[in-house]
């Protein structure tokens, strides 16, 4: 647990949180590694975890009938992977595959939620940070949707 705390305290995502809050969050987490090619989770699977990438690359993809697997985004050091545990139906909405060996902090989603309900101030701090990540990703996806580099004739 103290090892996780030592890792989290250096992560920009948690900047501004108190040591006490970080210790509480650390209790829901552990350090994990994934080999290159490993499957972190698949679309439709039960969503109970979140991952903060410490090193390595993860590809998020969607499968379509016409085009097979299409990578929609890659995530790298410092990025969070997965928050579908926060909202119903608590199922992953895409596949996450490990591109290069990943070391990460794995968070237990339901435990984090329980912690947030017991400590609303901590819950707010976490939700504020997650929301910022979600908004940034949504903005980026909107730009991708615009297909700004295509030729218009």
């Amino acid at each position, binding site marked *: 647990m103290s090892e996780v705390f030592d890792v989290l305290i250096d992560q920009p995502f948690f900047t501004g949180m108190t040591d006490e809050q970080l210790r509480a969050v650390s209790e829901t987490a552990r350090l994990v590694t994934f080999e290159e090619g490993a499957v972190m989770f698949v679309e439709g699977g039960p969503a109970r975890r979140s991952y903060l990438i410490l090193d390595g690359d993860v*590809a998020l993809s969607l499968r379509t009938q016409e085009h097979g697997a299409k*990578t929609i985004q*890659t995530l790298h*050091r410092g990025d969070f992977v997965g928050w579908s545990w926060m909202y119903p139906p608590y199922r992953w909405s895409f596949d996450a595959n490990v591109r290069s060996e990943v070391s990460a902090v794995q968070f237990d989603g339901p435990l984090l939620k329980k912690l947030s309900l017991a400590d609303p101030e901590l819950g707010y701090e976490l939700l504020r940070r997650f929301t910022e990540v979600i908004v940034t990703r949504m*903005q980026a996806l909107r730009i991708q949707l615009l297909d*700004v*580099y295509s030729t218009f004739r």
Partner: protein
Amino acid sequence: MSTQLSVKADAHVMSPVPCRILSVEQELQDTYTLEVEPPGDEWSFLPGQYTMLYAFGIGEVPISISGDPEDSTKIVQTIRAVGAVTDALVGLRPGDYVGVRGPFGTAWDTQAAEGRDVLIVAGGVGLAPLRPVVFDVLNHRERYENVTLMYGARSPGDLLFASQIREWRGRFDLEVLITVDQADDSWRGPVGVVTSLVGRSSFDGDTAVAFVCGPEVMMRFTIQALERGGLTDDRLYVSMERNMKCGVGLCGHCQLGKFFLCKEGPVMTCAQMAGSCWIREV
């Protein structure tokens, strides 16, 4: 150092000079690079400038110069075929002639970046007008701190100057970050918008200088990301484009706010534009 070669607004500057095509190379499905014999022995240009290229009997368009500013033996121009004139230009062959006026416009202020981190952020065919900056910085590498090229394209098949990028990636004194908006599983590189590369690069936000070129919406969001990284308006340079016709600030077609982009641009700082040029109606 002046960022603009002076161009006399007289009849001569409005007359295209016939110049011979030396080579035509296809870069992408719709993008070609032409090498053209310069109009004279004293030809030179600054990174960021453009010429007006005239396809005889068809029409004339502004095209960014994409070559090395220290190579005065040829004019290198990268053209995306998006209409009648550009279709005609990319259809030319070695030995054919094209009309050349210029160079025109303002340049990327590499002197302002000396002693600082340099960020070169390109989207799509926007890498063409930025390539001369990369050449210029690498030709005088000792003058700059960390140099980073961030480049985003639609898909792996749309990466412009791919072999050049591979060459740059082999250098130890240049960080090259690439991403594409969409890819299938055969692509093992990053997928995401170019703005996502800003957070993955290390630079001193208090002093770095950024040169940004690409679709305007891409530049808008890139500037926001760079500002979050600490850059201020006076250190953010963009290449603005509008419908340029004369190249010398006479016809007014390229007016953007109070600026004639053909002459007072295309390269400008965000401080110069001071928000007036991001207004939707303008």
